[in-house]
């Protein structure tokens, strides 16, 4: 039973982790909490849904969700956040909430408020070491692992990733070293959007697609970003997994109503006891 809950928690946690990755990247480099991250997920979910409906291929759907959410994220930067660069945190946060509303309303107008679903073929579970796991969960875990691998390769094995981390570390030092801020920021918003898009598609496949779905999963993503240490990509993913697994495995003890509260209880504890999070560095949080 516990092992079964653990498996459910892993898939849940990967979704939270991917969303948190988008949040934490923006926070580490653009330095504000991006409240539009949830609705960027929704854009990804609808993008993937449209592609899946047209082709029936999960691979194409993944590509479409990355493209749609990446484009929405980049547009948000070009049209709004770039113009507000250097403003106060509050101004950027409020602007992000505005972008979130705009995205949600646009999706509602275009696709309507009726729920939509990915018509994925349903299959009976397969037995893996006595555990009953649904094939779709294995596929989704694979999708998440592949996406995370690509994201971390971009961050740690490419010049643009190195530049992004340099800007995160010290923007002024990065600038005097000849790093072009615009290219870095564009790459950042694309990467953050792509991560959110995959998270949105996974959530859409697991649940139903509706304009409010991303906004409603924003808080767990923030909780994971804080728990992992703001600005730490590895931390965000690990914290997402911790929260997802903790929520599911705790249900026999705390029940189903309070499992959501558990994520925020953990977040509170972290803020009180270890404000920099699991993987955060003091200087990373500014």
């Amino acid at each position: 039973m516990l092992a079964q809950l653990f498996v459910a928690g892993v898939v849940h946690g990967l979704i939270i982790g991917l969303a948190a990755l988008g949040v934490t990247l923006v926070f580490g480099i653009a330095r504000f909490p991006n409240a539009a991250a949830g609705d960027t997920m929704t854009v990804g979910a609808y993008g993937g849904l449209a592609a899946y409906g047209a082709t029936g291929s999960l691979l194409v759907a993944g590509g479409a969700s990355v493209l749609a959410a990446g484009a929405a994220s980049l547009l948000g930067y070009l049209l709004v956040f770039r113009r507000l660069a250097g403003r106060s945190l509050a101004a950027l946060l409020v602007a992000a909430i505005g972008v979130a509303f705009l995205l949600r309303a646009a999706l509602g107008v275009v696709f309507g408020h009726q729920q939509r679903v990915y018509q994925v073929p349903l299959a009976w579970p397969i037995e893996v070491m006595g555990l009953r796991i649904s094939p779709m969960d294995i596929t989704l875990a694979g999708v998440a692992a592949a996406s995370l691998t690509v994201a971390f390769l971009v961050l740690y094995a490419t010049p643009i990733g190195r530049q992004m981390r340099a800007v995160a570390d010290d923007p002024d030092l990065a600038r005097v070293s000849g790093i072009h801020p615009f290219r870095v920021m564009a790459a950042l918003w694309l990467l953050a959007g792509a991560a959110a898009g995959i998270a949105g598609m996974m959530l859409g496949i697991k649940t139903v697609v509706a304009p409010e779905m991303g906004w409603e999963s924003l808080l767990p993503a923030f909780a994971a970003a804080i728990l992992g240490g703001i600005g730490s990509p590895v931390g965000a993913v690990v914290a997402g997994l911790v929260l997802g697994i903790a929520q599911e495995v705790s249900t026999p003890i705390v029940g189903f109503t309070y499992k959501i509260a558990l994520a925020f209880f953990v977040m509170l504890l972290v803020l009180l006891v270890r404000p920099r999070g699991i993987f955060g560095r003091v200087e990373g949080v500014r």
Partner: protein
Amino acid sequence: MTTHRRTLLAASAGLLAAPRFARAQAETFRIGALNPVTGAGSPYGAGMQRMIVAAVEAINAAGGANGRRIEVFSEDTQTAPQAAVLAAKKLIEVNRVRAILGTWSSGVSLAVIPLTNDADMILMHTSGAPALSVPPANARHLGYRFQATNDRFGRAFAEIAVKEGFRRPATMAFNNASGIGNTEGFRRAWAAKGFQNGVHVVYEPNQPSYRAELLRVLATRPDVIVMGSFLPDTTIILREWFQMGVPVKWIIPAWAANPQLVQALGPAVTEGIIAVDSVSNEGSPAFAAYDAAYRRTMNQPGLSNVYAAMTWDMATTLGLAIEQAKSFETAAINAAIRQVANPPGEGVSTFAEGKAAIAAGRKVNYDGASSVLDFDEFGDVTPDFGVFFIERGQIVRKYVVKI
């Protein structure tokens, strides 16, 4: 020349003034049609609104209620409490309506009823939450429910479970007044029949997975799971259940187990699900009148929208109550509603019939299109329930249960 211009001026002034004069002569009784045109209630909302308008047209064609025409102002709740409250405020403060008809979901009705209570006006709704029967929501007895309460749905579920021979029912409820109302009603009725209740799980909305909840329920090996649920969560739960490969039967309210659910999950997952809904007062003359109006305006049979039959009855009942009260004051109209809807009295099926009987000094009893429409002390009615089975993707009605 001057005279000519002056004549022209006078004539045009007269023309401009005439309509206003006419309007002032014919004061109307204003009502709000506040329905879920968009959002989760959108399959029903447009039809509900049209039937308020159609029933009011019938009232006005019969000379209006107590000498006044009724005027309808339409608004959309978006099936969301926030939007519904804004719309209700607009209806009350800007349009100055004297009653609001047709809120659909419990969350919306619970949010709107404090406003109608404060404005001293009647609210007629189709929501199921038991909280709408009692104070504080219905402290002033101005709320009327044209749908069965969730508690009555639960009792109907228990009748069906007995009839279908289930022995070990478990219950799962969406954590709100409506969801828990359904399962609580079932558990009370089931226990009253002398049976043992199974495990009861209350779950939260917007979860990416309901695996833990399902594991808990299925571990007790129930033969049926009785739901107090809505469409999105039911979609997620059934999809997850099917992929767990544990056979069990389901009893689900029809607002969740509807054609959209079948479309989302396909015939294999939904095969054998028992969907339960209140049924209209089919075969009654009032239903025939409603059905004709529904076919005329919506191009569909009246049976396709149980809630539209309810809103048709709302407008008709309100019109009859105004006629009976010989007044436009809320207190007088409110006192007259049970007089015109409940027995004893001469059975009437349309506003015109009722108006004639009232004029002749007889006590009337309106038998509605949605149910016989007899309000209890809480303003609730007791319709019959249709039991539908999903078979190869089709939702087929099998029998009717009375409670």
